[in-house]
């Protein structure tokens, strides 16, 4: 009975933890529009509308209603997948976003698929790799985590594209061509996203791995003569899994945000590029919808991480 109640509490906590970041972010994102001088009526009016015309536009768009009511409306629109129309082109925001999702999903997915094993390998070898190599790997991890993404992008372009002529320097994907059909165009963007994420993750994971390795059960297993791989998989992995899962969620969130830089720099028409151009054009409905989507993804990642931590906890999760 008590165990059931504890489990219910755990599930409730997971739901609250998943909902809290997007919920808080939604208020801030909604208020962005309020903080701007001039509202969407001014934008629609093109700067030449009279006060009377502006008032009519505001009434038509419902901008004269109280703030809380407009927030509720706006949130309902977001949740129902109809976040309004672009102020610049007049096209539905959902349609704009839908067209951009495949590119960003391919990019972020490929980057994550590369970053996760690399992160584990780096963190492990910085702690338990060949002794003379450890300081070198630690240096690589610290330096790699510090390297600005844009500088890495430039260095990779110079090396892989201008130096060795392996891949084209900018991606400029033709419209309507799926991103995965041209893997050569994705090499530079994916590396630019994955390498700093892996180094950053490894820099943080290194501490957790070092802690786990110094625990008595790991030393016992070593003394019993278990192979390094078996020790890593059977004892170290479960011990660092909760920390690694949370870290992965944060790194994944950063990776999603990083697509904005990478897509803009390499000329890929994805969600990040849409966000950047919408910010440049003060196209608030688009900005708000893309930002909400990103925070929901981050919230989902954190929930998955919490679920992993809960599942591998030897105390049955309920004790937490």
């Amino acid at each position, binding site marked *: 009975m008590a165990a059931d109640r504890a489990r219910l509490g755990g599930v409730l906590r997971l739901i609250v933890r998943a909902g809290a*970041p997007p919920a808080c972010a939604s208020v801030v994102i909604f208020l962005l529009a309020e903080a701007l001088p001039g509202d969407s009526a001014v934008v629609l009016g093109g700067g030449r509308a009279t006060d009377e015309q502006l008032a009519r536009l505001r009434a038509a768009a419902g901008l004269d209603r109280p703030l809380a009511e407009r927030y509720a409306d706006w949130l309902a629109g977001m949740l129902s997948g109809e976040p309004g129309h672009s102020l610049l082109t007049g096209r539905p925001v959902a349609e704009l976003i839908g067209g951009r999702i495949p590119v960003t999903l391919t990019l972020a997915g490929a980057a994550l698929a590369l970053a996760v094993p690399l992160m584990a390998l780096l963190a492990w070898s910085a702690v338990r790799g060949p002794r003379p190599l450890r300081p070198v790997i630690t240096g690589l991890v610290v330096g790699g985590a510090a390297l600005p993404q*844009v500088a890495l992008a*430039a260095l990779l372009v110079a090396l892989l594209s201008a130096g060795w002529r392996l891949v084209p320097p900018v991606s400029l994907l033709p419209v309507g061509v799926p991103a995965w059909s041209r893997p050569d165009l994705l090499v530079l963007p994916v590396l630019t996203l994955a390498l700093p994420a892996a180094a950053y993750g490894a820099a943080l994971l290194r501490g957790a791995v070092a802690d786990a390795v110094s625990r008595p059960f790991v030393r016992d297993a070593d003394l019993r003569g278990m192979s390094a791989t078996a020790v890593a998989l059977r004892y170290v992995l479960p011990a660092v899994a909760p920390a690694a899962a949370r870290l992965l*969620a944060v790194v994944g*969130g950063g990776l999603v*945000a990083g697509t904005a830089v990478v897509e803009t720099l390499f000329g890929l028409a994805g969600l990040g590029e849409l966000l950047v151009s919408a*910010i440049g054009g003060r196209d608030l409905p688009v900005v708000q919808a893309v*930002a909400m989507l990103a*925070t929901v993804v981050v919230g989902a990642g954190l929930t998955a991480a919490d679920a992993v931590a809960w599942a591998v906890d030897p105390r049955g999760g309920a004790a937490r």
Partner: protein
Amino acid sequence: MRAFRTRAAALAAGCVLVIALGGEALAGRDPIRTVAVPWAAAGPGLPLGADALGRDVLARVLAGGRELTLLALAAAAAACALGVAGGLWAGWSRSRAVRTVTALSDLLLVLPLLLVAMLAVVVLPGPSAVVAGTVLGGAPLTLRVVADATAQARHAGYVEVALARGERGLSVLCREVLPAHAGLIGADLGQRTVLAVQLTAALNVLGFGPPPPAPDWAAMLRENLPGIGLNPAALLAPAVALALLAGTVAGLSHVLAARP
């Protein structure tokens, strides 16, 4: 050995900072004037060639780090100061307010820094957005580190002695706890600086930095990417400069953090 490493790391970071901040004055070259054809290769008088508009790349690299570095340092200092103040308070006091602030700061921690800064750009000018992003994304990390250290120090001998002498909590925090964690806070300031450099570079590449004719390392990357085949130095020089700035500061921070 350890003292030597700290000194070497400090020297490297110091040199890079001096060149980044004072490069233009040292060199006395004009970063704005057109002096050659676009993306002219390196030659006499132009050691690194010319950029997209035929301007001296060396002059632009020497001048292009000042604003970026100053902004990153200011943003990092603001984030660190706020985080240290909050951390000392959160680690020392046990009130309900502490738990609320810690929960809020943990919530900020999970949002991607770059996304926060990009949303700030909607309502703020670029430099203010960098400061806002660094403070919102960096101060919670500092707060957590300093709060842990303060909570541990609360029961340390030197703190109990000071309290037994009759000193007040605030005075103990500022005169005993804070100096004891100077290395930790120095390392943290370094990490926030790296974060702020990364954020500034990203926002400037996206076009939210200083307006065009002004030299800027990050903007140079975007301007000179198409000319990679003609003058690779125009792209490589600012990339190496950014990497050196972030790398040496991170190295110093790493050495400081490893000190006992």
